């Protein structure tokens, strides 16, 4: 299984990353090499093997439904590239 330039371009779009043609060319070549290397995982016998997505059993950490201290709107907006009032300002979403 290998990766084409078209696939890289589409995946970059899904990942919301703009690539110029030179970057797309270079990246496609590099990803092809990396995937070639990774493809040797195909040799491993994984029959009846369970996947490990987390090394420790993880559970949702719950607490009582009591209001606690949380981040103020001011603090949440402190780093915003563009803000107005209590809002993060972004380009128009709906035409």
């Amino acid at each position, binding site marked *: *299984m290998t*990766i084409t330039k078209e*696939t*890289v371009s589409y*995946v*970059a*779009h*899904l*990942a*919301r*990353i*703009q*690539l*110029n043609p030179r*970057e797309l060319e270079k*990246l496609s070549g*590099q*990803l092809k*090499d*990396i995937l070639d*290397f*990774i493809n*040797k*995982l*195909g040799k*491993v016998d*994984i029959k009846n*093997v*369970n*996947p*490990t*997505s*987390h*090394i*420790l059993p*993880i*559970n*949702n*950490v719950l*607490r009582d439904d009591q209001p606690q201290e949380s*981040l103020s709107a001011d*603090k*949440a907006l*402190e*780093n*915003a*590239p*563009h803000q107005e009032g209590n809002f*993060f300002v*972004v*380009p*128009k*979403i709906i035409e």
Partner: protein
Amino acid sequence: MNKVNLNELTAHELLGKLKKEQTTSEEILSILVKRIKEMDPKVKAYVRVDKSNGQTGHLSCQQAGGRQELAKGQTNLLKGIPVSIKDNICTEGYNTECCSKILEGFKPPYDATVIKKLKEAGALILDSKTNMDEFAFGSSTENSFFGPTHNPWNLDCVPGGSSGGSAAAVAADEAIWALGSDTGGSIRQPASFCGVVGLKPTYGRVSRYGLIAFASSLDQIGPITKDVRDNALLMNVIAAYDPKDSTSVDLKVPDYTKSLGNDIKGMKVAIPAEYFIEGLEAEVKHIVEEAVNKLKELGADYKRVSLPHTEYAVGVYYIIATAEASSNLARFDGVQYGFRSKKPKQSLIEMYKNTRGDGFGDEAKRRIILGTFALSHGYYDAYYLRALKVRTLIKQDFDRVFKEFDCIITPTSPTPAFKIGEKIEDPLKMYLSDIYTISANLAGIPAISIPCGFTKRGLPVGLQILAKPFNEELLFQLAYAYEQNTPWHTTKPKL
């Protein structure tokens, strides 16, 4: 009287001096800052240091504001000692940018739990952060937005990565000690390249709350120090259950310094055959074998074992870690913090794409796209799911060996520090430099790298010790025994 500079001492030595009132925290900080101003133009271990007019500029310390919590009788455990922090650990009100353009100017609204714990122990937090590969993506610190750090042992060489700044600062006595993070070797490999001690704790031992995430099932914060005792001391403070980190483990934290000095006679050490094959530089192999012989001299028994799935570790890692990274880095989109593209007349999606296209460096883009691909429809089973299954097999290899052995010993890296620029054009070559460190992250086990010698060209070589989950005490015990019977930890680079 021979006056050793305060910045050249270990934290435990400085604590001794503070206790005897032979120095003050102000004096220690002042000498450290002086050293940083003198050396950092060459080493570049720190970022965003204001070097203008020889003034301290931004280089100062935050301190706990008065109230100090008593924790298990350990009051002011680290009082007065400055700690250097990697740029991906959040410090409230002080820039934390992961050495990336996309997070420029970011001042976190909260402290990471490890920072809170350090402050509670009275430590001083240096507000200039140490250099790193952007978002921890790298093994050389060459992927930093601020340029590479230079290895104090040879300024033409990389310090390793991604915690290269932290390791270099400690090696150059520009830091007393430091925190780094390790996802695939990012504490241990730079520690080995810089001749210092670096520990990746068991997954879940140290809180990840406030560590800007790379791969959530692999990341851990850990200490980078001049010697093993300092490493144990710092672990005493940062290791803890944290309800704010849902992957944090609720297990009592021992006093890690208690096992230092214990006899290692009869300790069963496993040497995995798969770590000593082609690709391992001959000099490194020889130095590591000498180290193993030293351990035998000190009473440990060793035997060759097999970890048969070793060769798949790098492949597994670069699927799982990049998949997790693609998810974790989705939040950097120019909306809430950091850099936003100022191209005119952008739609929202164009703003996202331009921000991320301009704001991320090449390696970040490479990993995010690879990760997105591995998770995408049609490829998920062949790549991501398969990698998760091979991960199980890698973990089982370790479980099997730990049934019979106390620990596993390997070289930390197949080579010593390479030259700046040597591997940067070949990502795959760069990825393979993590070959010995990656498995410990996949299996969640603790691992330490300690200096074990120098190559003929004067570059440090690191010895890696791995143990069962939550068995850091054993790592410290063995590492200390080796360290105290060898001269490496007192050797310093000539800068």
